[in-house]
């Protein structure tokens, strides 16, 4: 039997923003087909970790290693990481005035294909994926995130996920700002994308999303570190007892 290799792996990652260390040494292995969730209170470093993994220049990885499918992500600019199969659904997607959803997605899809590749299937695929996420077709002609509601922005992020089909998806607070109907639609979109070949890392404050996208593992992050790990049951426990419970528990551990 051959040894199973992780799809995505980061080791002892430290992240600095403006000279402040916001992530202090976290490690994780995600194997093909797995869904992991990072949960934690606000300011625990979850979003900073996601941004740093994707290569946001405002976040510096001062120490650690990041690999996707054996490729060293830290040697790559964000565009190369994306083409290698990494994806980040943003917590607050920025408006890009004057650039339509369709044109933007066309450029992004095109970047993945050979130069002279036929793009005639693009429109059809786009429409099908929009239908799957209950996004009206005229949205394709609107400027990306410009004047979109919070829920619309999140759906468009998942539309990008569906169109770009990455190997590894980091979903940063994709559930925030969604009402229950929108949450279900977005979760269905994520589940349609998910296969035994790709991986998902959900970053969330609340357990709510995990009712619809079932994680195999849950990691609790506090003050820039993973402080507790467990199965899907951990999310339920957190929902019940709150983050203070983990805080007390880890404090006790330190005392021992």
């Amino acid at each position, binding site marked *: 039997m051959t040894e199973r290799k992780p799809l995505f792996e980061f080791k002892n990652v430290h992240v600095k923003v403006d000279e402040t260390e916001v992530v202090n040494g976290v490690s994780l292995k995600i194997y093909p087909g797995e869904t992991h969730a990072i949960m934690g209170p606000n300011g625990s470093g979850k979003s900073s970790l996601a941004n740093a993994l994707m290569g946001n220049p405002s976040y510096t990885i001062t120490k650690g290693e990041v690999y996707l499918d054996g490729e060293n992500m830290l040697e790559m*600019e964000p*565009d190369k990481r994306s083409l290698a199969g990494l994806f980040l659904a943003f917590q607050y997607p920025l408006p890009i*005035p*004057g*650039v339509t959803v369709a044109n933007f997605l066309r450029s992004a899809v095109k970047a993945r294909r050979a130069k002279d590749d036929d793009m005639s299937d693009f429109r059809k695929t786009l429409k099908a994926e929009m239908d799957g996420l209950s996004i009206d077709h005229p949205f394709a002609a609107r400027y990306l995130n410009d004047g979109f509601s919070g829920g619309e922005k999140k759906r468009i992020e998942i539309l990008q996920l569906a169109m770009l089909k990455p190997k590894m998806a980091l979903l940063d607070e994709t559930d925030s700002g969604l009402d229950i109907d929108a949450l279900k639609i977005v979760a269905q979109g994520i589940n349609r994308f998910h296969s035994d070949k790709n991986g998902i890392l959900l970053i969330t404050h609340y357990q709510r999303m995990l009712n619809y996208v079932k994680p195999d593992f849950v990691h609790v992050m506090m003050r820039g570190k993973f402080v507790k790990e467990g199965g899907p049951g951990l999310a339920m426990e957190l929902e019940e007892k709150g983050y203070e419970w983990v805080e007390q528990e880890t404090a006790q551990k330190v005392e021992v």
Partner: protein
Amino acid sequence: MSVEQLKDKSETDYNIEELAEELTNGPDWLTDQRRNSQKVFNDTPVPRRGLHLWRYTDPYQFLFNREKMTETEVSANHASVEKTAVSQFKENNTSCLAIDLSGREIKISGAENFQKDGLVVSSLSRAVTSHPELVEKYLYQLVGNKTGKFEAMNGALWHDGVFIYLPDGKQLEKPLHILHDAGRENSSSFPRVLIVVGKNSELTVIDEYSGGSTDSEKGISYSNGVVEIFGEQDSRTRYVFLQRQASAIKSYYTYRSQIERGASMLTIALSFGGALTKQNFGITLNGPGAESTIYGLLFGTDRQHFDNHTIHQHSAGQTRSDIKFKVVLRDKSVSAYTGLIRIEHDAKTCEAYQENRNLLLNKGTRAETIPELEILNEDVSCSHGATIGPIDPDMVFYLTSRGLSKSEAVRTIVSGFVADILKLLPDDLKQRISGFVEQRLENI
């Protein structure tokens, strides 16, 4: 030599008498206007640096040394410009083409299609005889002898220009195109355009400025132009000003428009060319219900220098004006923008908006923005805003995180920045302008 003597010397250097002497073949009223302009030019001192509107640009740059003006190569170059323009005109969705060859010769194609409608597209020199009462009524009325030294220079020295007249109640669906070709090195030209849009009429004009010296070593060229547009009651005018001149020309342009009750005016000012360009776009809202919108787009590269003014003059109440002036700069280019909104004491319940946005693509570019509000009554709704800065790095990160290279991300964001202006243009022009933008984003 004393300072006083120096000053005298410089003033006589720019004496335009000899040039103006050639231009006395019109009717008496025109000769009087020219002589008056000449006098105003001579009597008006060169504006002092630091004075209003001259803080960022040296006025002496627009005064050429007459001895160096040879103008020998003008005609050879014009022939090819004319040939290309006429063949393009046939393919384009244009109703009529007027080619202005350095203001020395005006050639019109396609006007015959519209003669039955009473539309006049003509050289100014012909119109002076064919439609004397119209030309006399309107010419020099918006940009006259009191406007300033450089406007007076044009008033004295224009050879020939373009005259467009659309009578009352006519709609011209396809745009009219004017193509000005400035002379090559060591030449000067004084383009002049007069447009009158009759009551309840509708007209689109594309006014394109091209040509000029391509090599500053061989010598630069100068252009000093004036445009006057009258929008009569309930008329609808769209005017596209396109400056895409060569790299070694210095240009000074003054555009004035006056619109009456219920009339609307859309001005789109697109600036890409020239070494040094000063442009002044002014619109007077002269009757209730008049509406004016100015969209500006300027893209500077290399060491280009642009200095723009806009004026929205609300002389009547219940009028509305809106300005969006967008600037993109790269390399070592420079832009200054001064936007004046003036609302008179009796012009109540006006709306006036002004926005100037500057995108700096690299360090070493410089943009200035000076909003000016002169609002003489309180019953108005008015706002202005300005931004100057580089592209938001988070926007670049967002696009690169989807696989676009950094330069592709920048090109995408800039194309988006200019999109709202491009979408107002007729299709064939939109493609050309988007081509100019792409060209200027090469190797970014």
